[in-house]
């Protein structure tokens, strides 16, 4: 066992963790922050997506000990108290989920993705648009861009169209 200290959703937490523990299991089983879900435990489905030090990761393949000292943002930290984040409200209004199990991961992923796009990050979809877009980043987030950037979040219920609609709506408002 070793002490792992994380700032989770703005709050400093120190826990005694098994060195084998993933960030996912530490969040769920030790801190009882069960919003982040386990769908495969092998990085294949994206349901466990959280942000570590501002970048989205799959927490099932993150060794808790290796991120000792980091900032972690989970889905429970995305709303502002009772005030839903625009993404969350958009998911509700656009019906961006059915069973809801992948939703924490979709929202955590989309939340980070909007930041990535805002700072000019690319996806493979950007290369279809030519060198200038590759150099400067796509100005708008087209549906193709959103889909590619969200491809690591699997939704078996198939709510994909509404998820993209929700994200696109928020992306437009952010501009």
């Amino acid at each position, binding site marked *: 066992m070793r002490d792992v200290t994380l700032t989770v959703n703005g709050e400093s937490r120190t826990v005694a963790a098994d060195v084998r523990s993933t960030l996912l299991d530490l969040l769920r089983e030790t801190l009882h922050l069960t919003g982040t879900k386990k769908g495969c435990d092998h990085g294949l489905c994206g349901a466990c997506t959280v942000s570590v030090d501002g970048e989205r990761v799959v927490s099932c393949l993150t060794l808790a000990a290796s991120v000792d000292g980091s900032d972690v943002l989970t889905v429970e930290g995305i709303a502002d108290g009772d005030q839903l984040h625009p993404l969350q409200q958009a998911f509700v209004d656009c019906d961006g989920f059915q069973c809801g199990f992948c939703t924490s991961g979709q929202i955590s992923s989309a939340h980070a993705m909007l930041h990535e796009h805002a700072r000019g990050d690319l996806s493979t979809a950007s290369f279809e648009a030519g060198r200038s877009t590759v150099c400067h980043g796509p100005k708008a987030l087209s549906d193709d861009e959103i889909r590619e950037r*969200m491809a690591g979040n*699997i939704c078996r219920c*198939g709510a994909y169209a509404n998820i993209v609609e929700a994200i696109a709506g928020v992306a437009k408002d952010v501009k």
Partner: protein
Amino acid sequence: MTSTTDAAGIVGTPMNRVEGIEKVTGHATYTADVVVPGTTYAVLVQSEIPHGTVTADSLRASTERALAAPGVLHVLTPLNCPALHAPPRQMSDDLPLERRPPLSDLTVQHVGQHMALVIADTLENATAAAASFELDYETAPPQLSAREVLDDAAGAGDRDGEGDGAVRHGVYQPDHFVKLEDEKLQDSRGVADEPTGAARVSATYTTPLNTHYPIELSATIAQWDDDVLTVHDTTRWITGERMALAAYLGIPEAKIRILSPLVGGAFGSKSFLWMHVALCAVAAREVGRPVKLVLTRDQMFSSTGHRPRTEQHLSLVADEAAHILSTEQHTLTETSTVAHFCEPVGLSARFLYDSPRLVVSHTVARINYPTPCFMRGPGEAPGLFALEVAMDELAYASNVDPMELRLRNDTDHDQASGKAWSGKHLRECYLQGAERFGWGERPMAPRSLHRDGLRVGWGMATATYPGRRMPASCRVTTDTAGHVRFASATHEVGTGVRTVMTQVAADAAGLDVALVGFDSGDSLFPDAPYSGASQTTATVGSAVHQAATEWRKRLDDMGGQLDQLTPGQLETLNFTTTSEGAAEGGPMSQSFGAHFCEVTVDEGIGRVSVTRWVAMMDCGRVLNPKLARNQVMGGITFGLGMALLEQVPYDAHTAQLIGEYYLPTHADRPVFDIGFVDVPDYGLDPVGVRGIGEIGTCGVPAAISNAIFHATGKRLRNLPITLENLMKPFDDESDPGGTP
């Protein structure tokens, strides 16, 4: 898109899901999220061989080693597991409940069979101890395909694979699907011999092993309080699971409480009682502490059912006017050696088109593979693949537009039973769907359309799925503040049942929807059947409608003012009511639809894209168009996976799972245009609905295959359709395209 507070007209509005805010904030509680103080963790050990016997010595040695590992509290194996009872025949004859309880003997019937359960204080310790197991087996030759069993049975002269034991071999031909005696798996009508017609198509179609792959892993938390068992489980059959668990454990149902308020996707799985749930309950009793067991993703392939393979031989004969004279569909499929299941592939052929002659048969082979079960559109999904591709082939053989062929063979009653339909608007689906798609522009000849160096194809298929209704009960409770809650032991698996039941209840009770709630997921609530077969809205909806209507009547009989009731009067607004199943001798209830899709095919690199999709559905009344549209899009995406991506990969030599099972990602799905005929059908239930959960998938793989034929001229009858099927040889320089 916010909910209306106007009580009149809440049904049919796109109200947001009642549990939506919980789901987007991470506060929705699924089974594995439930925190039970003192919980211990269980991890399964599964067999790595398909057939044989494990040695007692290796079980003992592995158990000893595991018990010595850090944190391990107990190990259950066939050597020490308290005996469980076999389920009654009434449960195992028709349903895929395993006849042989888990850990009951040393034989191995399939890869992935549970061999041990390790319980420890932490998940890491349980996982490590389970991984330390090293089992030795005496292997026996396995039977891994229906063909193998058939050939064996033919040789041995024994084609009657009945027998009475828990473990059975051979082949058999079941009479009907689950307990639905009218859904005949061996059926025929009309003349004995296939007539000669102007056009005939006859081919073999195959569908591979598919798995449900809900994102939520199956999870169980079992705890005993003296002799009362509480089980949190990712189940969508609370009532049945309680019954089955009581049978396996040999305790009264009244001593079991099952909780499953939110399920993270099922698609046919998480029904019945899967063996790990019983083991979890046994483990909890042995260690005297709550036990939590979450299946791994790999274990989901073997331990909660799957869609078995099918091999279908389908022949259609039509006359000069392209009227079908004869339909024959013969299916060979598989189940395990320890449970019954027959994928009811040929049921749609019995009624979908006007066919005076019909022969449908199903042969099931018992193989050394895990037990299969329902998977979204059981029967329809693989069966309509074959039927709708065959219809497309018949259209070309008859030189008739594929949709025109469907119109010419549309039926006005159910030929299988002779009954009228409770409602049918399939023609509207065809015509409106075609209009929205632009089907009228379609040139008949394959390889006529191209765009940007890609071949383009347009295909269509009919969709259908039964409207079913079972008995269900609903409880109403009213508080002094005027809040009214309805409750039933049904399950919110993502279909939106809690939301639409709230709408139905508010509407029938004449209440502002903000005052109404619907609770599900607890066996203490009145009984409901499993949430599957697209029957929940009709079934639970009827019970809710009945309860809400009765509630309004009782209130009106007492003056109609809630705040003027005496406590005694208020108490009469708490009651439970039961609604019946579909009326005996009533009309046939079936939902219908039409799919139209466009694909592009890059023949250089063998890549197919499904670009746009139009689906028109006739599912009776649409209670919530936002939820319904999402459900259908989800079903189409599911079918796209079946068509182009999904097959459970396994190693031919060892029968082990191998590699990855691909699902559609965000990047794979088309642009959707979904429409509903939205004509209420009161023939099945007073709410006017028929099922919607599965019809979206039905016919989708055929529509895609048909579109690919239209694009390339290649007729593909085996799923999934992959790159190898579509890539042209490098030396074929016709149609040089090249622009990606």
